[in-house]
């Protein structure tokens, strides 16, 4: 049980980071970005691309010889790439949509189409194989009251630190305040001198970089797959719903709780032999929450449509 708690904390902190990224974007743009998972995956895949030979059989990318860069540098580059990707999405796709006053539902469906498209691009270019970062295997050690590998422990600590930094930035910096202003009213904030287009662009970049980081974390403790984003997206939604849509703090706590729930549920009696279905438990809980307390733990009570 305690072991699962450790795993749960790990998964939870990753979901937290990813959830905050999603929540940040939603908070400022009111877009539920279903392609968020693909940005997460990009972090992992780009890191893989830079640090080790991608084992694939498709197209002209075969001509690239393995880059074999230092792992840390690869991570860094990957996060930059994610930020760029997010920025491009905003400038090329979502800003025109916003300027043309395309409705929220249409944008949501566009993000779904986008996620399908990008995900299968990954399949094409990175292949359907499960791949791993070029890191040596480690033995588990005891930290506090659970066992995990030193690397995973570092991920856990790193995740916590990132959460704290993001939380502080949001609350106390001018940028954070500006983001919250744009969220509350785009018109009002532009009147008070805040360029909402720039803020939104910055939010996209920040959100994407955070997402990429979450992807790197996830790939570090597990592996790199073409559909890893899609797999984790639902858990992210569950975490965000549990914590309360629209609150970053809620996303953090909710993500953590979902991660723990997922891993701990493996130990439940009826889960014997059905370990893979642990996600189903978390999702079921999410649906129950929507039934009884849709605003989650920390969200504001939403009116009926």
């Amino acid at each position, binding site marked *: 049980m305690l072991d699962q708690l450790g795993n749960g904390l790990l998964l939870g902190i990753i979901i937290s980071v990813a959830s905050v990224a999603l929540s940040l974007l939603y908070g400022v743009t009111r877009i*539920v970005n279903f392609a968020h998972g693909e940005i997460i995956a990009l972090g992992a895949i780009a890191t893989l691309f830079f640090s080790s030979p991608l084992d694939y*059989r*498709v*197209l002209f990318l*075969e001509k690239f010889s393995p880059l074999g860069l230092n792992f840390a540098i690869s991570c860094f580059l990957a996060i930059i790439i994610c930020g760029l990707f997010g920025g491009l999405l905003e400038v090329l796709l979502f800003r025109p*949509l916003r300027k043309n006053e*395309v*409705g*929220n*539902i*249409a944008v*949501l*469906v*566009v993000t*779904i*189409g*986008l*996620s*399908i*498209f*990008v*995900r*299968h*691009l990954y*399949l*094409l270019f990175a*292949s*359907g194989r499960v791949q791993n970062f070029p890191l040596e295997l480690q033995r588990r050690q005891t930290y506090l009251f659970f066992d995990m590998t030193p690397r995973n422990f570092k991920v856990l600590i790193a995740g916590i630190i990132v959460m704290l930094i993001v939380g502080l930035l949001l609350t106390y910096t001018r940028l954070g305040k500006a983001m919250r202003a744009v969220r509350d009213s785009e018109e009002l904030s532009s009147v008070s001198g805040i360029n909402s287009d720039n803020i939104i662009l910055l939010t996209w970049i920040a959100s994407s970089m955070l997402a990429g980081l979450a992807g790197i974390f996830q790939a570090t403790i597990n592996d790199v797959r073409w559909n890893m984003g*899609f797999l984790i997206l*639902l858990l992210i*939604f*569950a975490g965000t*719903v549990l914590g309360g849509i629209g609150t970053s703090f809620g996303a953090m706590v909710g993500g953590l709780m979902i991660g723990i729930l997922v891993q701990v549920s493996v130990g439940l009696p009826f889960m014997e032999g*059905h370990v*893979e*279905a642990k*996600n*189903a438990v978390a*999702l*079921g809980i*999410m*649906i*129950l929450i*929507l*039934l009884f307390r*849709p605003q989650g733990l920390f969200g504001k009570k*939403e009116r*009926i*449509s």
Partner: protein
Amino acid sequence: MILKKISLRFIFALFATLFSIYLVFLLNSEGAPRILLNLLTFAGIYGLSAIGLNVHFGWTGLLNFGHASFMGIGAYVTLLLMPHAAGREGVVVTTGLPFIAALTLGIIAAALFGLLLGLPAIRLRGDYLAIVTIAAAEIFRLLVRDLESITGGVYGIINYTENFQKYRPSFIDNFSDNLDFSPSQAWVCLAAWVSILFTILFLKRLSNSPWGRALRAVREDEDAVRAMGKNAVWLKLQSFMLGAGIAGLSGVLLAFNYGSLESTVFIPLLTFYVWAIMILGGVGTITGPIFGSIIFWVIISETDRFAYLLFENANGQQLAGVRFLLVGILIMFLMIFRPSGLLGKKEELLLDVK
């Protein structure tokens, strides 16, 4: 009189559909009848499913991204109630209900599943329902895969087609002998298109009724609906159940088309196909999905061919990926530039539900 009703849009859609069918003949020098039948069968099944999804999204503005699970519930419940064989051992079940009874219960089960999902989410904002339906579809997929004793898990269910094929009329066998295609698939194809016909007639009847009127009002302004003493949430739930039931029927047909059913059939990708078809055909139109479905399937099956040419070194899974690349692009493109699809009217769209 009839000419007035047939608009330019309709003629264009008809033309596009016929042209794409012609394309199939053009690009396939041999085996065209067989390929065409296969295409029409899938088009019919998915078209029916898209009609159900249209009730959700086009009529009521509900975001359902778990449509595959409604199809799956319909299929599994129906099959399990009839004689079949399931699981790794192929455990045979010889008792069961007659086809029509099992089918009816399957459709009702799908509708009830819709009720179950709708209850928590429909009174909330649109994106919540999207998330709930995706989550539910995932739970469904996992349960189907893991509850092997009930559903046959990854080994699935087989030996059920006879329950339906025994009703196959002899004229089909005569045709198939002459034209070289599978009679059992032809029977499924016919059933699919007849189902579409009945469903369309049913929906038209509903649309012109007080209930249809009430639903349209809900689409316009829920607050005003409530101020008039009507329960907007219940109306939306009913519509959700209706679309779910239609999807259930299409799921059964899909199962009979495949001949065997296991946990990799009703997956999210299926839902996205249906969405693409619905948007292509025209959101909110009753007959739009038909055209969308045929054209969609022609595009999909013919681009498989091009994928082979472009990506020589890709494996099977990656090639299938090209299909979905296209689906993704299609959905995005349509939603951005032509959300009304082939037959839809721009003014009818309600893409602004907050």
